[in-house]
């Protein structure tokens, strides 16, 4: 039971971590929290569903194409909606992302209806026996895909010129500008990356909880909780925070009750913001100049 719970907790945590990464990516670059992140992922998962059921594309291909389209959708959204208001106060942009939430949510409902659909999984569902524990290959698959995405992000941010510039810009925007970094381009790239990563999250979570127009709401809440645990400004922090949320949720559901899953995430958000607003792992609060 213990090993099973840990693996499914990590799988759930991986899903949250992908959305948490998307949130933190945009926040680091723009100081904006994109409340529409979950709904954009939901929207793209519906698009992926169309590719599978109507265009009859093979599932692995959809897993490549849909995130690219998700990145493109986010890129276009940034250009058309966010860029024109990027010089205004951040709270305006925040409200606009809430508006985007509603737009994507209603558009999806309008196009695809309000019924849940069964979404195919990339991995087999029947549990396999691994050293005495019955582990679901789906869980292992989710963890593997999430790790691959994280490794990709790590390489991008640590070893490429553009990735380093994005890190630099999140540390000191004016200095980055003085190096010739285009801050608007950094925002654009962050949205694009976040759009792709968020879509992967949607594709991984849909087989577990069914595809419907509200499927990402609770995922977004958990991703928030995890990202806040990690300080909301650190990509590794968000991953660890979301993993903790996933494990805690699974254990709570396994041993106590599944009735309070969402309440639990909200409790985490409130407690962290009250007692440790800079996250669990912050060494010192770095003051922004």
């Amino acid at each position, binding site marked *: 039971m213990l090993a099973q719970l840990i693996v499914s907790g990590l799988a759930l945590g991986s899903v949250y971590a992908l959305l948490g990464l998307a949130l933190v990516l945009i926040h680091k670059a723009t100081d904006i929290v994109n409340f529409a992140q979950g709904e954009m992922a939901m929207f793209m998962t519906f698009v992926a569903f169309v590719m599978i059921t109507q265009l009859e594309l093979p599932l692995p291909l959809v897993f490549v194409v849909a995130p690219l389209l998700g990145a493109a959708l986010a890129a276009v959204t940034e250009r058309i909606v966010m860029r024109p208001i990027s010089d205004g106060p951040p709270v305006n942009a925040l409200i606009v992302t809430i508006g985007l939430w509603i737009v994507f949510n209603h558009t999806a409902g309008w196009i695809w209806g309000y019924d849940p659909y069964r979404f195919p999984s990339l991995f087999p569902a029947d549990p396999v026996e691994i050293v005495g524990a019955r582990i679901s290959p789906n869980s292992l698959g989710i963890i593997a895909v999430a790790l691959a995405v994280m490794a990709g992000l790590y390489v991008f941010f640590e070893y490429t*010129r553009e990735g*380093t*510039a994005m*890190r*630099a810009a999140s*540390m*000191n925007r*004016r*200095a*980055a*500008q*003085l*190096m*010739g*970094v*285009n801050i608007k381009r950094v925002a654009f790239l962050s949205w694009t990356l976040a759009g792709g990563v968020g879509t992967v999250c949607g594709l991984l979570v849909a087989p577990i909880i069914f595809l419907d127009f509200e499927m990402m709401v609770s995922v977004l809440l958990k991703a928030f909780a995890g990202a806040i645990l990690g300080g909301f400004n650190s990509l590794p922090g968000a991953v660890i925070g979301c993993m903790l949320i996933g494990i805690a949720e699974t254990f709570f559901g396994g041993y106590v009750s599944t009735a309070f899953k969402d309440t639990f995430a909200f409790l985490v958000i409130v407690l962290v913001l009250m007692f440790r607003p800079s996250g669990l792992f912050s060494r010192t609060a*770095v003051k922004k*100049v």
Partner: protein
Amino acid sequence: MLECVDLTARYGGIQALAGVNLTVAAGEVVCLLGANGAGKSTLLGAITSSAPARIGGVIRFQGQEITGWSTEAIVRAGIALVPEGRQLFPELTVEENLRMGAYLRRDRDAIAHDLESMFELFPRLRERRGQIAATLSGGEQQMVAIGRALMSRPKLLLLDEPSLGLAPLLVREIMSLIRTINAKGTTVLLVEQNAHQALQVSDRGYVIEKGRIVGAGSAAQLLSDPQIVNAYLGGATT
């Protein structure tokens, strides 16, 4: 090389620059002296298009008008600023900070070569190349800030109070470094409160007060001007 004509800058209702005329010829070291809030940093911000102020007047660089250009275009044209308070990327390593200075360059081999020459100019940074910038001492941070600006291979280097917060010995080291950089062919505009040290390494100087140029001349002239001596050199300390 650099020419500011009737340059004005406003932050909301506050006039930070009120018609500044200033030139820097190729090969010179020119210093701009003035007290806190006189408009020195605003001037450098205006030149690099990085001050959040409303700018008026004309700025020309190498004969081309650059007023209103983006910071990116200005850096590309060959101007680099070492901002006040270093403004390093605190969580990046020394080497990453230096490489960020070459962000707009694509010549990988030449960048590697320039990185090497930075380590020759600042041997202490070589030992610390993998260290996070936030853990460096003030003097080392200033070296990284200067090195980072040089990594863009600027024709004109702007320095905003490089001596601020440094021990006297380090101040002298930074000032002699400015001479070295200049000798290698980079034109320098140095903004300082530390007038005495700045004039020692400069060919010419300007004095700015409340957003207006109130004095100009060769370093020797300014050093012997009793008014300048009284206002900025703390009386007769020469």
